[in-house]
C-alpha cells in the first residue's frame, strides 16, 4: 500500500511528510512577528480563520536564513489539536511512496538530526527525508527567553 506524501525543499534537500498530516499549502506573504516566541518562529498567519504559528524550517534545521521568494510555501501540518505552518523554500510535488522504498535513517544522521528525520525514502538516485512532524514542532522551547 503506497502512501501519498507532500514533498518540499529546504536548503536544497528534499523532505516529505504524509499528505494526511498536511492541512493545506499556501503561498507565503509574510507573517505577523511575535516577540519572544520560540526560536525559528517567524510569526503567526491566519489560515482559514485559524491563527497558526509559522516555523521557519531553515532556522529549525540550522541553516542560514534567506529572504522569502515567490517559491516560498507554507506547509500547514496538523498534530492532534495543534496546527503549525512550516515555512519551506518550495513545495511542488506530491509523491506516492511504497513501504519498500522507505528505510530508517543512517545512525549518524539519526543522532545529528534531533529526531527530525524519521526515515529516508530512496527513489533511484533521489533521496527524500521523511520528517517527524511532531518532533519538528516539538514543544520544548529551543531558546526560550
Amino acid at each position, binding site marked *: 500500500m503506497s502512501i501519498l506524501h507532500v514533498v518540499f525543499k529546504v536548503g536544497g534537500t528534499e523532505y516529505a511528510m504524509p499528505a494526511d498530516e498536511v492541512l493545506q499549502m499556501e503561498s507565503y506573504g509574510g507573517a*505577523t*512577528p*511575535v*516577540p*519572544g*516566541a*520560540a526560536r525559528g*518562529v517567524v510569526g*503567526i*498567519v*491566519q489560515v482559514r*480563520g*485559524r*491563527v*497558526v*504559528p509559522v*516555523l521557519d524550517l531553515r532556522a529549525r534545521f540550522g541553516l542560514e536564513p534567506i529572504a522569502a521568494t515567490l517559491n516560498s510555501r507554507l506547509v500547514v501540518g496538523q498534530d492532534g489539536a*495543534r*496546527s*503549525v505552518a512550516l515555512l519551506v523554500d518550495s513545495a511542488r510535488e506530491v509523491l506516492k511512496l511504497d513501504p519498500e522504498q522507505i528505510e530508517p535513517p543512517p545512525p549518524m544522521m539519526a543522532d545529528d538530526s534531533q529526531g527530525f528525520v524519521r526515515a529516508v525514502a530512496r527513489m533511484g538516485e533521489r533521496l527524500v527525508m521523511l520528517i517527524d512532524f511532531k518532533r519538528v*514542532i516539538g*514543544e520544548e*522551547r529551543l531558546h526560550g527567553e
Partner: protein
Amino acid sequence: MSDVVDLAEFRTAFVVEAEELLTTANTSLLDIEKALRAGNKNIRAVRELFRAVHTIKGLSSMVGIEPVVGIAHRLETTLRAADRAGGSLALESIDTLLEGVRAIAKRVRALADGQPVAEAPSELLDRLERLESATPSTARQSGAGALILDAEIAGKLGAQDQAQLLEGLAQGRRALRVDFIPSPLRAEAGSTITSVRARVAKIGDIVKVVPISVPVTADAPGGLKFGLLVVTSESAQALADAVGVDPGMVYSLAAPPAAGILGAVLEAEPEEPSVSRHGVVRVDVERLDDVMERLSTLVVTRFRLSRALAELAAAGADVRALAQIMNENGRQLRDLRAAILRVRMVPVSEVFERVPLLVRGLSRATGKQVRLVIDAGTAEVDKGVAERLFPAVVHLVRNAVDHAFESPDERTRAGKPAEGALTIACFERTNSQLELTISDDGRGIDRKLVADRAHRPLPDSDAALLELLCLPGLSTRDEATMTSGRGMGMDIVKRTVEQLGGELTLQTRVGVGTRFVMHVPVSISIVDAFTFECAAQRFVVPVTMVEEVVDIDPARLVRGPTRRGGEAPRLLERRNETVPVVQLESLFRLGDRGGEARKALVVRRNGEPMAFSVDRMLGQQEVVVRPLEDPLVRVIGISGATDLGDGRPTLVLDLAALSGALSAATLEPAA
C-alpha cells in the same frame, strides 16, 4: 467508511451524555450518603442513581465499551435491589459505589480523549459483586434464589433452562452469563463459538447459548454476540479466562434475595427518564465556537465595508443611504453577538457541581472535617471561561482542605468548631465581571514561612505575599502530600485567572483564615479594544485593561541611570504619582522608531501603575480575540490575535501581565 464516521459522532454524543449521567450519579450518591448518616433513606436519590447507571449501561453497550457495561451492570444490580428494598443501602457500600462510578468516569474520559479504554479491574468488580449479595439484607435463603435476566435473554429461555440455573444456585454454585463476540480476528486467534463452548464446558455446565444482536462495530462486525449461560463452581474470572474476554463481560445471574421474589424475574426496568428538561438542546462547545468564528468573519467583513464606505465618502460620493444601512447592520451584528454569547452561558452553580465530591474525597484522605457551603446564586458564565477556571477552583479547594484546615483536635484546642468551614461564593458584578470567592477559616498563611521558603524578604502586604506564593515551584510543605503533592501550583492558578483577563487577590490572617478572590470577565470572546501602532507594527489592547491614555512630553520625562548598559529607565509624573515608562518597541525589540514616543498607555497592577509608550493611537473597536495557545507562540504579555480586517493577525497584548512580569524581573536579585 461512513459507518466509522457515524460511530465517531455517536461517541461524542455518548461522552457528553455519559458525563452528565455520571454527575447525576455522584450527586445522588452523596445525597444518599447524607441521608444514611442522618439515619434516613433517600428513595428518590437511589432511584435517580439507578436510572443514571442503567442508562449509562445501555448507552455503553450501544457504543460497545464492554468494560463500562460490566461495571455499570454490577452497580445496577446492587441499586435495583436497594430500590426494591425501599431505598435501603449500607453506608459502607457508598465508597465502593463511588469507586465504581469513578472507574466508569475514567473510561469515558479515555474514550473522549481517544485513548484505549482500560479493562474493568476485576478486584473492583469482585467487590461490587460482594455488595450485590450483601444488599439489602444478608439473609440469603438456601435453595430459593432468583435470576436476573435481560428481557431479550429471558425471552429465549425455556422454563427448563431457568430451573436448571436456579438449581445450580441452590447447590451453591454460580449462575453466570458470559458474552462472546465472534469476529474474523478472534477466529484467526483460534476463538470461535465452537472452541469457546468446548473450553467453557470444561469448567461448568452450559445451560444455553443465546444469540444477541448488537450494533455493527469494528469489534462486532457481525452485529452479533453470544451469551453463554453457565452454571459453574469456578469464579467469574476463571470463566472470563476460559472464554478469553474481559471479566467485565461476565455477569452474575443471581438476583440478590429481595422481599418476596421467588423464581425467575423478568426485567421490569423503570421507565426511561422522560426528557426531563423540555426543549433543552445539548450542544458541543466546539459547535458554538464555530458559530462564533463565523460571526467574527462577519464582523471583519463589516470593517472592510465601513472602510470602503469611508473611501467613497472621501471621493465625494453621497453615502448617506449606505451609511444608514451600515448603522443598522452594525446594530444587528451586536444583537447577534449578544445572542450567541447568551447561548454560551452556563449557570455557575453547574460548574461547582463537582466540588462536593472533591471535598468529600479530600476530607477522607486528610481526616479533616469540612463543612462546604456553595453559593453561586443565579450567576452565569461563558462555558469557555468556566472550563478554564474550574481547575483553578479545584486547586484552591485542595489547598484549603489540605493545608489551611487544622486537624479537628487542633481546631478544638484553638477554640474553633471541629469542622472547617469552606465557602465558595460567586456573583456577577455589574460590569460583566464575575467575582468568585473561596474562603476558609483555617490557619491562615504565615508570611514568614513563605518568605523563608522563597528566600525572599518578608512581604509587607497580602498582595506581596500572593506574589511570593505564585512564584513557580514554591511549596510551603516539605512533604508532597497525597492530595496536593501533584497538580498545579499557585503560579498556574494566577496565570489562569490572568489569561482570562482577570485578577486574583488574597486576604489572610494567621489563625483566622484565608480568602482568595478571583475577578474574571463573564465571557472573553469579543472585547472592546484600543488599536495602536508601535515601530510600524499594529497592536491591540483591551480597553478594560487600560487605565488611561496619556500624552508624553519628552522634555518632562525623567531618565534614571542605566543599570546594565541597556535602556535608561524613564519616569513620568502624573497626578502626584510616579509612573515608570516602558518603551514597548525596545521591550519587544521591534527596531528603532526614531524620536521619542508621544503617547503612553497606563495600566495598573496590584495598585502599581506602569506606562507603555507607543507611537500613535489608531482607534477603538470591538475585536474578536483568538487565544494564542500553541506552545511555540505562548508568550507572557501576548494573550491572542485578532483580525482587524486585513486578513492578517494582529497581536492582542496583555499589558497587565507584561507589567507584572517586568516588576517581577526588577525584583529579581541581579544575576
